[in-house]
C-alpha cells in the first residue's frame, strides 16, 4: 500500500505543501499572539475585583470571544471569504487561509491567556498593588512574568490547534499538507500520500508539544 518510489517522486510536492502549512501557521500564530495576548489580559483585568474592573467591557469582549469560538471552523472558513477577499485579495492559497485561521485562533489563545492569568495567586497581585505599582507595571512585571510558563503552554496548544485547522483549510483550497491529503489521499484513494501526510502531521505535533514543554520548563523559576 505504501509505494516508496512514488513517495520519493512526490517529495517536492510534499515539501511545497509543508512550507505552505508552515506559512499559514506562522502568519496565524503571529497575529493571534499579537491580538490574543492583550485580549486575554483585558478579559482578566476587567474581571470582578481586579484593578480595571469593568463589567461592560468584560461582557462585550467575552461575548465576542464565545461567539467566534462557537462557530465550527469549517463554517467560519467559508463565512470569512468576503473578509479574506478584502484583506488578501484572493480566497485561495495559504495566505488567504491564514485570515480565517487567525480569526479562529485569536479568541482561543485569548481564553488560554485569561485562564493562565487566573492561576496567579491573587495575593501576589494584591501585594504589588499595596507596593503602589501602576496598572502597567502590574501587567508587565507581575501578570505576564508570573503567567509566562502557563502562557507558553497555551501557545503550544494554539499551534497544535492551528495544525489541525490548517488541514481543514485544504478543503477550500488553502493549500498545505491538509490540501495534499484531501486531493491525493482522499479524492484519489492515494494511500501513499495519505499515510505520509498523516505521518508528517503526527511528527509535527509531537515536535511542537515537545519543544513547547521544554521551553516552558526552561523559563520557569519556581
Amino acid at each position, binding site marked *: 500500500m505504501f509505494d516508496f518510489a512514488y513517495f520519493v517522486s512526490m517529495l517536492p510536492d510534499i515539501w511545497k505543501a509543508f512550507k505552505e502549512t508552515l506559512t499559514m501557521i506562522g502568519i496565524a500564530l503571529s497575529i493571534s499572539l499579537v491580538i490574543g495576548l492583550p485580549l486575554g489580559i483585558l478579559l482578566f483585568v476587567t474581571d470582578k475585583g481586579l484593578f480595571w474592573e469593568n463589567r461592560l467591557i468584560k461582557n462585550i469582549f467575552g461575548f465576542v470571544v464565545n461567539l467566534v469560538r462557537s462557530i465550527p471552523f469549517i463554517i467560519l472558513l467559508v463565512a470569512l471569504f468576503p473578509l479574506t477577499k478584502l484583506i488578501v485579495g484572493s480566497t485561495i492559497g495559504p495566505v488567504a487561509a491564514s485570515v480565517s485561521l487567525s480569526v479562529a485562533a485569536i479568541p482561543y489563545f485569548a481564553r488560554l491567556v485569561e485562564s493562565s492569568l487566573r492561576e496567579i*495567586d491573587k*495575593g*501576589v497581585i*494584591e*501585594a*504589588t*498593588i*499595596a*507596593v*503602589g*505599582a*501602576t496598572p502597567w*507595571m502590574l501587567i508587565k*512585571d*507581575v501578570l505576564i*512574568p*508570573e503567567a*509566562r*510558563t502557563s502562557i507558553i503552554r497555551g501557545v503550544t496548544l494554539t499551534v497544535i490547534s492551528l495544525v489541525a485547522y490548517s488541514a481543514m483549510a485544504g478543503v477550500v483550497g488553502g493549500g498545505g499538507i491538509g490540501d495534499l491529503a484531501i486531493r491525493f489521499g482522499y479524492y484519489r484513494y492515494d494511500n501513499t500520500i495519505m499515510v505520509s501526510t498523516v505521518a508528517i502531521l503526527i511528527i509535527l505535533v509531537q515536535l511542537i508539544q515537545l519543544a513547547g514543554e521544554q521551553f516552558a520548563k526552561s523559563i*520557569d*523559576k*519556581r
Partner: protein
Amino acid sequence: MLEFQNISKIYQSKNKQVVGVDNVSLTIHKGDIFGIVGYSGAGKSSLLRCVNLLERPTSGKVLIDGVDLTKLSSSRLRTARLKIGMIFQHFYLISQKTVGENVAFALRAAKTPKDKIESRVNELLEMVGLTDKKDVYPGQLSGGQKQRVGIARALANNPSILLCDEATSALDPKTTLSILRLLKKINKQLGITIVLITHEMDVVKEICNRMAIMQDGRVIEEGHVYDIFAQPKEPLTQEFINSVVSFDIPSEILKDVKGQIIKILFKGEVAGEGVISDTMQRFDVKGNFLHGTIEYIQERPLGIFIMELKGGQAAVKEAIGYMEQRGAIVEVVESV
C-alpha cells in the same frame, strides 16, 4: 499617626450581610508597634487591609497624619501606598523575579532613578541580611528568608507605616523570633510605626508596646501591652493572656488548700519577694506559694504569684492591705 475613625466594613453577599469590622475607632501613634489580636474571623485582617485600602471600608475614615485616604484619587492613593509597607503571611513575592528584582520592583513603582535603584537594593538586602541572595529566585529560599525579602520590599520607599498581616504565622518559632527581632530593629532604627495582626500572643508579648483585642468585628479592649498583660479585663483577653501566661493549678493541690487563695501582682520595679517576706513577718499569717512567674514585657518585669494565705480573717485582711500599700495588686480568687 494613624487613626481609624468609626470604621465599618460590611460584606454583601447574595442574601445576607456579614459585618467584618463594626465601628472601630483606634489611634496608633508614631513609633508604636501596635498589635491587633483576635481569632480568625474577628475582623482584624479586614481592619488592617483598610489602612492601605486593599479593602475599602463601608463607612468611616482612615487618617494618616491627618490625611483621609478614602478621599484620595486612585493616582494619589498609589502615591500614598508607597509610604505604607505591607508584609504577608504567605510573603507573596513575584516568583519569576529574583530577590533583587522583587525589591527593585517597589523602587520602580516610586519612580526611583535607575542609577539609584541598584545601590538602594543592596542597602535594603543588607539590612535584612540577604546580601548573598540577590540573584536567587524566591523558590530557592526558606520561609524566613522569603519574609525578609518581603520586608525589604516593604521598606524600599522609606514608608512611615509597616503593616504586618500575620507575618510570622507560617514560620517556625525560631524563625518567628528572628523576624520579630528584625521588625523591632526596624522600628527602633527607622522609627517606622508597625501595625501587626496576629492570633499569637507570644508575638505581641515579644515586640508590641500597645495592643487591641478584637471580637466579632469590634475592638473589645485596647491599651498598653504591659497593662493588659497585668490586668486583662475582658474574658477573651484573659483567654489570650492565659495562652502565654497560664496558671493552671492541679486540682489535687487545690483540694488541700484550706486558706484564702490570692493572686498578687507586682508591676515593674516593686520587689516582689521583699514585700511577701515582710508581710509574713509582720502579720500572723502563713503563706504557701501555689504558682508564680515573673514575665518580662517590654523589658519591664511583671510578677504574678498565686498563694494561699492561712491565718485569722482579720490578719489575712490586714496582710492584704499591707501588700497593697507596698504597691502590689492583690486579688482574692475563689477558684483558679
